[in-house]
């Protein structure tokens, strides 16, 4: 998947234009271009086989078309996704494509038709966000709506994810054709402090979780007098339920590199490191490829674009530790130690990797930098709210119809994201809660759907922005179980260095385990509340300081659910097995026997078309019968409830 073409160094604006020209020929090749979304999510859904099948079909029919891999366009729940662009026509998005669709899809293409069966929407123009340029593709086909009009895409403004799903991530030319490296060329011709001023003006805050103003961080690092400095891209995206950084690294790696090179120029750093977690092998491969390409063209290395700037980047792979997302733990990890945080100050901007000034920025933060450098701070600040400028990518996942990555202006409401873009809970169920910020965040109840999503509003509601995970929960999710889940995570990932986090999370987990197993005591709730506050106040790093947010927020909004577990020995969602009793309503049961076939424990008694009965002695309370019953004759109740 490497590309030929220009091999000599890019030294001037003219060379960059040549790169761009070649990229435009690849993006708009004058023959059909078929792009298969092949990020990790696409591959998991089988896009590798789709890519091969389409290739085979093209060859079989002798159809001259360009077939390329692309990143993820965001709508992951509809993967595998394929786009087809014919000269002079709108780009067509296809979703849920199966290998068997390759034949009819290519056949439709050969006849100049749209393959209706899998068509999702049309795109009539490409907007190059970096330059503001618009490229008209062609009119949409009569019987297909616009992609931009789909619920999922309507509220979106894709800045950080501007190229994901559009370009071949292995092509530096295609990145250049979308305006890539232009901002760098302009930046290198100007004054570093001017760019820092623009970033400060943009109001950009760190997208990794803490939300520290990026411009200020750059200014402090730039002012830390030292001849050796580092810039680190934090790609240790550990929050379960968030994967925008993976998607950007896999779909548009050069945007992150360009952000880092601009940062290096502004802060005077010579060394760059991209730290990627081990669970993201494709991101590691894609970024490694991008670095090699940039190096080959002289965009990394000595004297970049004849500016005198020398900067190079290497990839360091993590080894499975959530705490390494914390910046001092990440530094310890790169230095060859266990990932244990240390007290700050000194902050890494003064004393970081190997004791040298170090700026650590998140992937999404860096992907925004070329846009701000190119179009100015005011332009970026024009989006979002007063305290939270620009856009944020959210991983809209869980019990929601349209699931994937959505990038919206800050201040968009929870409802616009979850019910609008997401289409609400799947299967017509009722929305119960939205969890943001992963293990460091909290659960917002459905009653707060009008809450604007920005740093301040989320904090006020008892949760955090975090890295942008947004897990939708319907009535089938138990909030006490969720708190227990996150506490299991935090207790397991606590590095053990400070006592409040190490002992506190374990103690809280013990109590939650007991409650979900039916041994809850009335005084537990006060203990949970007090312990959670102590861990929050007394822990050394962000992991411990936020680890109890899931407990505090569920106690705040879903206290009655805890009480049901404790007093009635009842899990209203039917998730906590030890509290749940399954019964069959003889009046609704038609005796079809499906439940008995499904039951792994042979606990369902009765025969022929007689109503079935569940033997409570043999029942493992797995709920398989409840899920399979076509008559909804099976119900559950709490162990301590009347009639149980």
């Amino acid at each position, binding site marked *: 998947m490497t590309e030929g073409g220009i091999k000599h160094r890019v030294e001037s604006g003219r060379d960059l234009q040549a790169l761009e020209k070649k990229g435009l020929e690849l993006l708009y090749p004058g023959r059909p271009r078929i792009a298969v979304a092949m990020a*990790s*999510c696409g*591959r*998991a*859904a*089988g896009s590798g086989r789709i890519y091969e099948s389409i290739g085979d079909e093209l060859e079989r029919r002798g159809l001259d078309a360009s077939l390329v891999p692309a990143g993820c366009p965001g709508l*992951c*729940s509809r*993967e595998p996704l394929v786009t087809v662009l014919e000269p002079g026509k709108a780009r067509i998005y296809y979703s849920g494509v199966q290998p068997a669709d390759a034949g009819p899809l290519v056949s439709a293409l050969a006849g100049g038709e749209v393959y209706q069966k899998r068509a999702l929407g049309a795109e009539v123009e490409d907007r190059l966000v970096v330059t503001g340029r618009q490229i008209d593709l062609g009119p949409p086909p009569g019987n297909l709506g616009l992609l931009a009009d789909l619920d999922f895409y309507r509220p979106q403004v894709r800045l950080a994810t501007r190229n994901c799903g559009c370009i071949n991530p292995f092509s530096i030319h295609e990145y250049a054709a979308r305006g890539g490296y232009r901002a760098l060329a302009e930046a290198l011709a100007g004054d570093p402090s001017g760019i820092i001023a623009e970033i400060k003006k943009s109001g950009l805050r760190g997208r990794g979780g803490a939300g520290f103003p990026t411009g200020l961080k750059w200014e402090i690092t730039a002012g830390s007098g030292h001849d050796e400095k580092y810039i680190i891209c934090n790609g240790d*995206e*550990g*929050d*379960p*339920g*968030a*994967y925008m950084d*993976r*998607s950007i690294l896999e779909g548009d790696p050069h945007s992150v590199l360009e952000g880092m090179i601009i940062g290096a120029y502004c802060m005077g750093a010579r*060394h760059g*490191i991209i*730290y990627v977690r*081990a*669970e*993201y*092998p494709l991101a590691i491969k894609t970024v490694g490829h991008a670095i090699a390409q940039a190096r080959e063209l002289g965009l990394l290395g000595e004297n970049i674009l004849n500016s005198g700037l020398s900067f190079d980047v*290497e990839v*360091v*792979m*993590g*080894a*499975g*530790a*959530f705490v390494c997302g914390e910046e001092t733990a990440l530094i310890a*990890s*790169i230095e*060859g*130690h*266990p*990932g244990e945080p240390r007290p700050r100050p000194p902050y890494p901007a003064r004393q970081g*990797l*190997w004791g040298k000034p170090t700026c650590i920025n998140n992937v999404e933060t860096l992907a925004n930098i070329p846009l701000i450098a190119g179009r100015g701070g005011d332009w970026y600040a024009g989006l979002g709210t007063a305290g939270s400028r620009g856009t944020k990518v959210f*991983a809209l*996942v*869980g*019990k929601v119809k349209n*699931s*994937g990555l959505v990038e919206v202006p800050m201040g968009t409401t929870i409802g616009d994201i979850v019910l609008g873009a997401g289409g609400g809970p799947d299967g017509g169920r009722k929305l119960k809660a939205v*969890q943001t910020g*992963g293990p460091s965040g909290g659960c917002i109840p459905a009653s707060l759907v009008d809450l604007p999503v920005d740093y301040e509003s989320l904090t006020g509601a008892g949760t955090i922005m975090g890295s942008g*995970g947004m*897990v939708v*929960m319907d009535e*089938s*999710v138990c909030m006490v179980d*969720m708190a227990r*889940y*996150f506490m299991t*995570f935090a207790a397991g990932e606590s*590095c053990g260095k400070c006592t409040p986090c190490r002992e506190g999370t374990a103690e809280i987990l013990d109590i939650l385990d007991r409650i979900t197993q039916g041994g809850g005591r009335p005084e537990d709730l006060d203990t949970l509340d007090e312990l959670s506050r102590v861990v929050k106040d007394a822990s050394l790093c962000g992991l411990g300081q936020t680890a109890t947010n899931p407990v505090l927020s569920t106690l705040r909004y879903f206290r009655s659910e805890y009480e049901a577990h404790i007093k009635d020995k009842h899990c209203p969602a039917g998730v906590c097995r030890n509290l749940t009793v399954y019964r069959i309503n003889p009046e609704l049961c038609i005796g079809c026997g499906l439940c008995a076939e499904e039951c792994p424990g042979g606990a369902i008694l009765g025969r022929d078309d007689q109503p079935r009965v569940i033997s409570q002695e043999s029942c493992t309370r*797995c709920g398989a019968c409840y899920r399979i019953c076509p008559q909804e004759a099976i119900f559950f109740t709490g162990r301590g409830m009347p009639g149980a």
Partner: protein
Amino acid sequence: MTGNEYTDIVKRHTSPNGRVLSILEEIQRKYRHLPEEALRAAAEELNLPLSQLYGVATFYTSFSLQPRGEHIIGVCHGTVCHVKGAARVTAELEKKLGVSEGGTTGDGKFTLESVKCLGCCSLAPVVSIDGSVHARVKPETVDELIKSAIPGGAPGD
């Protein structure tokens, strides 16, 4: 597995940044665990205390001091996989493979692990087999999944 092989691995990793991690990662990949002699050889070559390498080896979940199976089956227990039934997938795999989570089958063929989040949340629950991710896994079909992902890989064969 001679000390020289380990030393060669150490010598290949020249950048100081992430050096210890990348060396141990390569040893782990090659030998499916970190043998004691490998840690000793690496510590000597790097001129670092063995205790530091032992600390790293036991801190990060990617590393194991015990040999792992030929094939690694990782059930994702990220938030979404959790609410979409990852526990049932793990339970079924435990039954099929005859090991509990974290364990390796007696024949050394499979290791069953729990992984934190593979970032494929829209396709939950997901399972990774030898690094490739499989979408929307159902407990009922884990058998077929293993068979199709690993040639000749039927558990219990």
